[in-house]
């Protein structure tokens, strides 16, 4: 939610609190994705906010999971009649959300200083784009683009499928991606970038936004939410997305509403307060306030009839643009379709697939993912068997404990001091790590997913089997191994190398040591996001430096699979080497100087000294660090997720842990994700045992 929108919401809430002194409204913000995953978690825990405000497409999943309540019983039907029909969100014959505005749709915005009348067709768009994409200072680099937008995201792409004739989703929620229109739209976007060159090669939302705001892009495709941000900075006009010249059809942006739903756990008096608040927040009075503050297209019929809205030329124009759009689907299947489309579309843009193959593949993937998302595995005999087994196991534990209780008791009495010292930490770790671990073990054996959100059952080893028989797992595993091996070897070799250099008699030795620790000290998420910015193809410092120092042509770091994965690895190497350096420095300090002196007398070279004295002497400290480093790297989700923006391009930069996250929170496959986590856990345990045996270090434990 934009900052300005939050402020406006707070203003209307303050007003409500003034007239209802006994009620205090607490506002808490989460970004769309997090809102979803956090609300899911809190609903399982039986709590969460009473009123949830968000985009209409979350209604499907929330309703299926049963974590929001149907509004039909809570409000009189006359209440719903006060709104435009697309602001009253219905799913499976029930009403789940009421919007306080309509829109959220894409349109063409143009800088009036550069363009007087916006293009009406794609031919005109390309022509204008070409004349406006310019190298202003003659250094061979383009300084001003004709058109920019976040074109790699499906939401910003699907309007064009409509412009080429078909739609990407059928009315029943099934995907419709294997169409000529989808192929043509793929090819069209690619031609804008590669053939006509009127859009930048890599352009995420932030880049597009910044270019348009600073007058370095003549046109942008963006939604109505951005008006407030542009208002003071650019003199802009709005228009519908230009008609596709070859078909004569207009692109169809998705039109949705943002609105309020009520938590299923809200009951009694709290519920009647919530209903009252929701009535207020969707009232014409509040909507007119938003019109004034933010230029939001109202959803209330009374607000629409108000002279302030009638005379607002921006909103009038906007209403015409909305007419060209299509409503945002609310079915939960939408996520699976987005996901399939995103991957294939990014492959087309990366040049690794042709439009036809991508269209076929995206349809197949979407159908596949919808199937896995919706499947409910019934607990069969195996489920009962496993349940019995679990029960027996716990019983056996209890019996063993009972039989041996005397020995335990004696041991406790003998070492009372040790046990008491250990107890508080043990309790903490027990509750925070062992309980969740047990919980996951059970979930991994269950059919916990979107459709069984509230009543899952134990089904057995299905998820383990499906992980291990899926070829995708092995390629992810391979990538994770590459990721871990490359990272850890660089961490260790760089760390030891630097430690040896720093450990010599050098001027400013301490300063080096201190400064080289900084990557470790910087909070990881801040560092990762900074690196992502530095990898931007046109504006990131890395390409700029490569270009200025080595005269290299820019590398597409973030949109090609191998490059993107390398970018993640580079970032993580940077983050991880200081730890190894510090450990190695500690090890080096324990080596007595006499050893080197003695070997010098024997005529050993530096290199020989390093191999024969330094390495063996620091090995005992390095090995535990390597084991820990390997485990941490293997399970490091932050860097991969943040640098590659959740696996882009085409989900090709995932390692096992980031895939677990995606499976659990993106596709609602909790059971599957838990099974995968258990497998990761087993892999790492085996690694540790083997590695410790091999290095004869089981004495550590």
């Amino acid at each position, binding site marked *: 939610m934009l900052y300005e929108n939050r402020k406006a919401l707070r203003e209307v809430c303050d007003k409500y609190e003034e007239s209802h002194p006994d009620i205090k409204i607490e506002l808490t913000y989460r970004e769309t994705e997090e809102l979803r995953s956090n609300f899911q978690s809190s609903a399982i825990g039986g709590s969460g906010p009473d009123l949830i405000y968000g985009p209409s497409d979350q209604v499907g999943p929330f309703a299926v999971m049963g974590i929001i309540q149907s509004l039909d019983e809570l409000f009189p039907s006359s209440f719903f009649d006060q709104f435009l029909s697309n602001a009253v969100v219905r799913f499976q014959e029930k009403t789940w959300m009421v919007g306080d505005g309509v829109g959220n749709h894409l349109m063409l915005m143009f800088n009036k200083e550069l363009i007087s009348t916006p293009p009406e067709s794609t031919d005109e768009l390309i022509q204008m784009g070409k004349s406006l994409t310019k190298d202003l200072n003659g250094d061979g680099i383009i300084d001003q683009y004709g058109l920019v937008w976040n074109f790699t995201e499906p939401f910003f792409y699907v309007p064009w499928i409509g412009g080429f004739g078909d739609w990407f989703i059928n009315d029943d929620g099934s995907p419709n991606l294997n169409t000529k229109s989808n192929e043509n739209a793929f090819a069209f976007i690619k031609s804008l970038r590669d053939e006509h060159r009127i859009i930048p090669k890599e352009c995420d939302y932030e880049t597009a936004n910044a270019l348009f705001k600073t007058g370095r892009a003549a046109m942008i495709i963006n939604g109505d939410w951005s008006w407030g941000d542009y208002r003071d900075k650019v003199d802009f006009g709005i228009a519908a997305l230009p008609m596709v010249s070859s078909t004569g059809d207009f692109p169809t942006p998705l039109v949705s509403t943002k609105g309020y739903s009520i938590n299923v756990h809200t009951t009694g008096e709290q519920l009647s307060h919530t209903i009252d608040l929701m009535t207020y927040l969707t009232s014409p009075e509040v909507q007119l306030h938003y019109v004034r503050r933010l230029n939001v297209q109202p959803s209330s019929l009374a607000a629409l009839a108000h002279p302030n809205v009638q005379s607002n030329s921006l909103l009038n124009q906007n209403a015409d643009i909305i007419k060209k759009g299509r409503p945002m689907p609310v079915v939960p299947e939408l996520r699976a379709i987005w996901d399939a489309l995103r991957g294939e579309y990014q492959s087309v843009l990366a040049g690794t697939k042709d439009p036809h193959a991508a269209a076929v593949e995206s349809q197949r993937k979407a159908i596949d993912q919808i199937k896995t998302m919706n499947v409910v595995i019934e607990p069969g005999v195996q489920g009962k068997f496993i349940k019995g087994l679990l029960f027996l196991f716990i019983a056996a534990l209890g019996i063993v404990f009972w039989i041996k209780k005397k020995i335990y008791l004696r041991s406790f009495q003998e070492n009372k001091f*040790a046990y008491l010292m250990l107890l508080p930490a043990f309790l903490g770790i027990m509750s925070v790590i062992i309980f969740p671990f047990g919980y996951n073990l059970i979930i991994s054996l269950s059919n916990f997913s979107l459709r069984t959100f509230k009543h899952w059952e134990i089904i057995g080893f299905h998820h383990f089997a499906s992980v291990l028989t899926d070829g995708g797992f092995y390629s992810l595993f391979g990538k994770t191994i590459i990721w871990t091996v490359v990272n850890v070897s660089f961490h260790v070799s760089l760390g030891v190398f630097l430690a040896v250099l720093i450990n010599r008699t*050098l001027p400013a030795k301490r300063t080096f040591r201190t400064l080289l620790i900084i990557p470790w000290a910087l909070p990881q998420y801040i560092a990762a996001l900074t690196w992502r910015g530095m990898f931007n193809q046109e504006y990131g410092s890395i390409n700029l430096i490569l270009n200025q120092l080595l005269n290299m042509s820019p590398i597409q770091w973030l949109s090609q699979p191998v490059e993107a994965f390398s970018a993640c690895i580079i970032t993580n190497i940077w983050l991880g080497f200081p730890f190894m350096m510090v450990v190695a420095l500690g090890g080096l300090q324990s080596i007595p100087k006499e050893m080197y002196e003695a070997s010098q007398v024997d005529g050993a070279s530096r290199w020989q000294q390093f191999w024969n004295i330094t390495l063996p002497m620091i090995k005992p400290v390095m090995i535990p660090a390597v084991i820990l480093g390997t485990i941490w790297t293997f399970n490091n989700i932050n860097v991969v997720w943040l640098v590659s923006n959740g696996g882009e391009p085409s989900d090709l930069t995932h390692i096992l842990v980031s895939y677990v996250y995606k499976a659990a929170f993106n596709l609602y496959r909790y059971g599957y994700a838990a099974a995968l986590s258990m497998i990761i856990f087993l892999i790492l345990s085996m690694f540790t045992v083997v590695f410790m045996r091999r290095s004869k270090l089981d004495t550590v434990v």
Partner: protein
Amino acid sequence: MSKKIETLFIFSFLVLFTLATLYPALNIIGISLRTDDAFQSRSLALWTSESSFRSYVTLFLKTDFLTWMKNSFLVSFVVTLTGVVLASTSGYALSRFNFMGRRAVLSSLLMTQMFPATMLLLPFFILLAKLKLINSYLGLIIIYSSTALPFCIWQMKGYYDTIPDALEEAARIDGCSRFSAFTKVILPVSAPALVITALFSFMASWSEYVVAAIVLQDPGLYTLPLGLKSFQASLSTQWGLYAAGAVVVSIPVMILFISLSRFLVSGLTVGSVKG
């Protein structure tokens, strides 16, 4: 002579390497000094004619940054204290006593690091909701202290292993109890390891985001990472503010690291072998 040239060579290499290493950190500072819209720029300069400290002024005067900072300090302080107390005692038990289950405890400590943390979130939440600890610092503190503990215990145990047993035996002969031998003799000589444990516990809570995001819902309770993230709306990030916040968040950690780097080298014994 050749030795001097070598030193010069190594010195200049280290200077270049350090500069390259510091660049990303300097880059954040550069962004924090620019205006929001200059985020995408082709200039490599950190200070341009448009640079100003405006973001910092806004950060402190117009946002709740100071509240978040206070909250973060409170949480991190308690977590650090708990971490140090619990890790120092249990590390001692594991280093000095050979009791039943010792090996099991040590291996399970290592094993806790092997489970993907993201999958722990859901059970965390259920647990806290059952205990009515959602939206409270207590819940957050319990989770932070316990997640940092396994590493800290290992680390403390490794350090105690390097201290000869004779030390507390002497104290015991002088009539000290077990516990006072531990507090009066062992703890003082373990200062470097204690400092590292404190540093790790502090780090685990100071910049943690994911758990904080599910536990804290009331903006009045937000810690720094949560507050910082609120500048970063998915469709319009206030980059100047975000970067300025990031710089300020990093400063305490930097100061700690820099002032403690002496201890880091001597105290970080990730489980070195006894003897």
